[in-house]
């Protein structure tokens, strides 16, 4: 331990005294709390307006629209696949191309109805 003015120097105790915590001024508390309250209010307003407006804003429909589109695409693909699978059978049964087209359309409508009923 070092000496100062004939006495041992307890540097750590001196540091604790010299660097005693400083109480923030009351005005600072008010200032910070006001700013934080403003930010909180702003965030709450934004959140509430988002929640209320979310279903009115077409940009927020993306997920359900995509889900619907994906479902519709998958359903359409299934109808086409089934109709194609039965194409040879219809071809053999049909009298002419017009009859084939009529049978194909009828089969597609029937498959789409089946899918919609699930």
């Amino acid at each position, binding site marked *: 331990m070092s000496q100062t003015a004939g006495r041992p120097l307890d540097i750590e105790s001196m540091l604790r005294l010299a660097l005693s*915590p*400083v109480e*923030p*001024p009351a005005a600072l508390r008010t200032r*910070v*709390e006001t700013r934080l309250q403003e930010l*909180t209010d702003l965030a*709450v307003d934004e959140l509430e307006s988002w929640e209320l407006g979310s279903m009115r804003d077409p940009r927020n429909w993306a997920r359900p629209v995509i889900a619907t589109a994906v479902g519709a695409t998958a359903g359409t693909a299934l109808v086409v696949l089934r109709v194609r699978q039965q194409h040879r059978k219809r071809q053999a049964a049909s009298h002419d191309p017009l009859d084939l087209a009529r049978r194909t359309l009828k089969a597609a409508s029937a498959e789409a109805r089946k899918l919609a009923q699930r």
Partner: protein
Amino acid sequence: MDSAHKARLDREFSDLYRAHLRDVYSYAYYRIGNHHDAEDLTEQTFLQAYRHFERAQAESDGRPLRPWLIRIAHNLAANLYRDRSRRPQTPIDDTTVLRTQHTTEDLVEGRDELARILESIKQLPDERREALIMRFSLGMDNREIARAMGKSDGATKVLLHRAIKQLEGIVTAP
């Protein structure tokens, strides 16, 4: 994020603010050296902390957030000096500190020594000065200081040891 979650976060941030306003202000004051800039730095620290609170809380894994707060203040103080391209111009207002923080006995017996300590702290490199502020003003342990300064526990221990030794050398120099 729903309203209930937001309200819970705000409550928790409010608790953090109340618990550590004095820490942040003390750090800012001893780091910068004047009340005016210390107030600005404290305000900016909490505003920035509020913006990133949710992520910090998620990443803290239950550990105290004081080192994170002090790290924000540390970064802001570094930016302040970089912007102004200078070290503190205003000396620490030791008269105010002594008058408001210390007892009469301290004033009588140790005023000169405390003033000398404060003057000597200013001569230390920034990193050592900061480590001393965190330890002796805020009472942070090595692990907390390490997190606040982005160092390992071992490096922090060495940093503090060297800071105290250097300060001792300055204070006792003839």
